[in-house]
């Protein structure tokens, strides 16, 4: 029988040798050093949001199913501190938002047809051909909703790090973030 020491030693080796060489190739965001800087960035973001087009349309096709995780489509590379408008197609909705300071924006993932809505999720009416539920935030300041079209059983998740619940709701209701 293996001792704890032998087993933990094997675990360490197994972990180290089973993980491929992984390099982070994503964006490096800009820091917010102080409250003053944060305020400035928020103002910049607010201005950017005001410029974001308020467009909500039915997407031409539902988002592809079976995709485990997808970044927003139609994004273009941004330099830190700049703002671009990005479009996200999810559950047949086309959502537009402004990305500021290298923010990754909302991330969506497809949960598939077999996943149910967890008990305790709060359903909200956004007046769209989809059902929307707020679920517990994975971390403070990272609101998350689940979305399901009325005519399809596939469940989608939409996570918006750094957004408020209201901003996320506005994005769904109006197709863009609101101030």
């Amino acid at each position: 029988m293996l001792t704890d020491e032998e087993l933990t030693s094997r675990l360490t080796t197994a972990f180290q040798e089973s993980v491929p060489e992984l390099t982070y190739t994503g964006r490096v965001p800009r820091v917010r050093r102080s409250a003053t800087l944060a305020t400035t960035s928020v103002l910049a973001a607010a201005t950017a949001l005001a410029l974001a087009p308020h467009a909500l349309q039915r997407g031409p096709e539902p988002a592809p199913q079976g995709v485990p995780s997808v970044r927003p489509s139609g994004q273009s590379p941004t330099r830190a501190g700049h703002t671009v408008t990005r479009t996200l197609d999810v559950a047949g909705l086309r959502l537009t938002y402004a990305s500021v300071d290298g923010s990754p924006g909302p991330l969506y993932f497809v949960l598939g047809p077999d996943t149910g809505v967890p008990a305790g999720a709060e359903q909200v009416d956004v007046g769209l051909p989809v059902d929307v539920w707020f679920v517990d935030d994975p971390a403070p300041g990272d609101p998350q909703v689940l979305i399901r079209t009325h005519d399809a059983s596939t469940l989608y998740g939409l996570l918006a790090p750094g957004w408020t619940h209201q901003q996320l709701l506005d994005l769904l209701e109006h197709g863009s973030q609101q101030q």
Partner: protein
Amino acid sequence: MITERREQRAFEAFVADASGRLMRTAYLLCGDSGHAEDLVQTALFRTARRWHRARQQPEAYARRVVVNLAKDRWRTLGRRPGEAAVALDTFDTAATGREDLLERERLLAAIRRLPAGQQAVLVLRFLDDLSVAETAATLGCSEGNVKSQTSRALDRIRDVLDQEKENADADR
């Protein structure tokens, strides 16, 4: 402005130093490199956003976010993260014998059968080499909880490996 640039350079140095380790942790927690990068990107964004607080221990802060996002993903998916198997071709087959390889795969398979919380404890303690106290802080639980989860996980892995060994011996 100078201070801001200095802080940005410090943050970029942190990313250059720690992002690979964060990616490895995220990979073992969620099971594939694409999701791992999503988790790390979100964690870096949140660390940057709260840099004035996180800068004392940025890697611990970012790792906490990675773990929280992974935990949330497990809850949302309603299944364990390890179902995406670690590919065998990630092993250095030239440097290890076939028996070693198989034994390691059996060990990883046993880990993947553990509850998500126990897997997280093992990854943090034995890949990231965190102490019990650091693991508890990362997971937001007590040190006693980390110890009991570790003990239970090791017992279960040992049971699985012993059972497999008995079966293999019986087949010979």
